[in-house]
C-alpha cells in the first residue's frame, strides 16, 4: 500500500478501485489501479473477499469429505480438482484403480475443460463488448452440463470422484450423448472463429497486447493455456501423465507470440485437442469396476504427498502432510489462478485501462480459486 502511494508524483496521477463488484473481474476481486491519465502505472490485487478457509476446513474433514470442498475452488474445473485429491489418496495408499475408472476420469476431465473454455470464450467476448458470444457459448456449454447432470447428478459441482474410483457408474446414455455433443460442437466451433477470431476489432485489441515473455511466465509460475501462450511448456498431461493420458495421442499447444491473441488461440485449439482425446476413449471404455473397494475409514500413512494435475487453467497441485490420522494434518492447494494473477501487474504496466480488462480476460481468472 505505502509502496503504491509513493508512486503518486504528478497531479494527473490517481487511483481507481476496480471491483470488488466489477463485472469484468468475474467475481469479487479488487484491483487498486494506479493511473496516469489513461495509462496504468501499476496495479495491486487485494484478495480475500471470498476467502472461506477451505484449506483449514479440509483439516477437520476426512479424505472423502475433502472432495466436495475442492469443487468449490475453481468451480469450472471441479472435476480435475476432485481428481487431484483422489489420485493423491490412491498414490499414498498404493491403490491401483481399474482402467474403466481411468477412462471415465479422463473423459470427464476433458469435458470439463471444454465446458470451462466455452464459458471463458463467452465471457472474454463479453469483456470486449461482444455480448453475442456470451449467448452462443452458453448455448453450447449447456450440452456438456446436461451430460454431467445425467451421470453425476451435478451440473457445475459434480463431486463425481471419490478415492478409489468414481461415485456412480456412467449413465447408459453417456456415450451416445457425448458423441452427439461432439458432433454438435464440431458444427458450432467454426462459428466462433467467424464471430470473434477474425473480427477486426477483436484482433486490434488482442494482437500485441499484454505481452508476457517466456522467462516472466516461468518466474511468475503462469501455467495452463496462458503460460503455453508464452512458449512455456507446462502441460502436466504430457509431463507427468496420469489417468489415461498416456494412452491417447494429443498435442501440447504452444505458441510463442506471448500476447492475448496467443492465449486466445491456445484455448480455441485446446477445444479440438480435448475433443480428439474424448473421441479416442469414448468407444473403448473397458469393462470393470467403477470403484475399488476402500476401507470405510481411509487413513493415509505418515508422510508428505504431492499430486498435480492439469486443470482448465493450469497446474493444480495438492500437498498433504499426514500424521497417520483419518484427516490430513495440513493441506495446501497450489492453485493456478493465484500464480496467473500475480503476473497481471507486470503485464499491464504502461497499457491503457481498457486493455487491462482484455488482458485479465485472456488470463481467464476464477476468483474463488485465488482466495480459497
Amino acid at each position: 500500500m505505502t509502496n503504491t502511494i509513493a508512486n503518486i508524483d504528478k497531479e494527473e496521477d490517481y487511483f481507481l478501485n476496480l471491483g470488488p463488484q466489477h463485472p469484468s473481474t468475474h467475481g469479487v476481486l479488487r484491483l487498486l489501479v494506479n493511473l496516469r491519465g489513461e495509462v496504468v502505472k501499476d496495479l495491486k490485487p487485494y484478495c480475500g473477499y471470498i476467502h472461506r478457509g477451505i484449506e483449514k476446513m479440509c483439516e477437520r474433514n476426512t479424505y472423502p469429505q475433502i472432495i466436495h470442498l475442492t469443487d468449490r475452488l475453481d468451480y469450472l474445473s471441479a472435476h480435475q480438482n476432485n481428481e487431484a485429491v483422489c489420485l493423491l489418496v490412491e498414490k499414498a495408499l498404493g491403490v491401483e484403480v481399474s482402467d474403466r475408472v481411468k477412462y471415465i476420469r479422463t473423459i470427464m476431465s476433458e469435458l470439463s475443460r471444454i465446458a470451462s473454455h466455452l464459458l471463458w470464450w463467452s465471457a472474454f467476448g463479453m469483456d470486449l463488448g461482444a455480448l453475442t458470444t456470451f449467448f452462443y457459448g452458453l448455448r453450447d456449454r449447456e450440452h456438456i452440463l446436461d451430460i454431467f447432470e445425467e451421470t453425476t447428478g451435478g451440473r457445475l459441482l459434480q463431486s463425481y470422484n471419490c478415492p478409489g474410483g468414481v461415485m456412480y457408474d456412467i449413465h447408459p446414455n453417456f456415450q451416445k450423448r457425448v458423441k452427439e455433443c461432439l458432433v454438435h460442437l464440431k458444427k458450432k466451433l467454426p462459428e466462433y472463429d467467424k464471430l470473434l477470431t477474425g473480427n477486426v476489432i477483436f484482433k486490434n485489441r488482442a494482437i500485441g497486447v499484454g505481452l508476457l515473455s517466456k522467462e516472466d511466465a516461468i518466474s511468475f509460475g503462469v501455467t495452463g493455456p496462458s503460460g503455453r501462450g508464452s512458449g512455456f511448456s507446462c502441460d502436466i498431461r504430457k509431463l507427468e501423465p496420469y489417468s489415461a493420458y498416456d494412452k491417447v495421442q494429443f498435442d501440447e499447444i504452444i505458441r510463442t507470440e506471448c500476447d492475448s491473441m496467443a492465449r486466445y488461440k491456445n484455448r480455441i485449439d485446446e477445444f479440438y485437442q480435448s475433443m480428439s482425446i474424448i473421441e479416442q476413449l469414448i468407444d473403448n471404455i473397458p469393462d470393470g469396476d467403477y470403484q475399488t473397494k476402500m476401507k470405510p475409514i481411509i487413513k493415509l500413512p505418515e508422510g508428505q504427498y504431492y499430486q498435480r494435475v492439469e486443470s482448465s487453467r493450469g497446474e493444480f497441485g495438492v500437498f498433504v502432510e499426514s500424521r497417520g490420522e483419518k484427516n490430513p494434518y495440513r493441506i495446501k492447494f497450489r492453485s493456478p489462478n493465484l500464480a496467473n494473477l500475480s503476473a497481471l501487474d507486470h503485464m499491464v504496466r504502461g497499457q491503457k485501462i481498457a486493455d487491462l480488462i482484455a488482458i485479465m480476460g485472456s488470463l481467464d481468472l476464477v476468483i474463488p480459486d485465488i482466495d480459497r
Partner: protein
Amino acid sequence: MNAIVEYIKEVLGGVKSLLTGLSVTVKYFFSPGEIVTQEYPENRATLKMFDRFRGNVYMIHNEQNQHTCTGCGICEMNCPNGSIEVISKTIVVDDKKKKALDKHIYRMGMCTFCGLCVKSCPSKSLAFGQEFENSVYNRSDLTRILNKPNSTIAIKQ
C-alpha cells in the same frame, strides 16, 4: 499512394470481417428453430430433472408409511457439514430392547449436496429428490424431519 491503397485494403478487410460475424447472427435471426431458450417458470409442469439429479435429501417410505432406517448414525458421521442429526430411541420388541430411529433431522441450509450420506447409508434409506426450487421465506423451513410422522421401520423379509 501506396499508403492510401493499404489503408483502403485495411478498411475493406475490417468491414468484411464484421460482415462474416454478422452472417452468423443473421442466420440465427431467420431460423428461430435453433434457439434454445426455455420459458421457465411457465414450463414447470413439463420440466423434468435427470434421475440422478441431486436435489433435497429425503427418506424413502413405502405405502404402509414404513422406512428402512435403523438409526445407526452412519450418515451423520459421513456428512462433512453436520447437516444431519440422527436421534435414536429405545423400543421394546418381543421383550427385547432395541435401538430405533426417533428423528432424522436434515438441515438443507447447510447441505452441499455432496451425496456422501445417500451413498454411505447401509440400508439404502436415503435418496435425492428432484426438488430444485428451494427458496423459503423463513430459514427454519429448511430444517426438515425426514422420517414421516408415525412411520415405523419396515421388517426385513
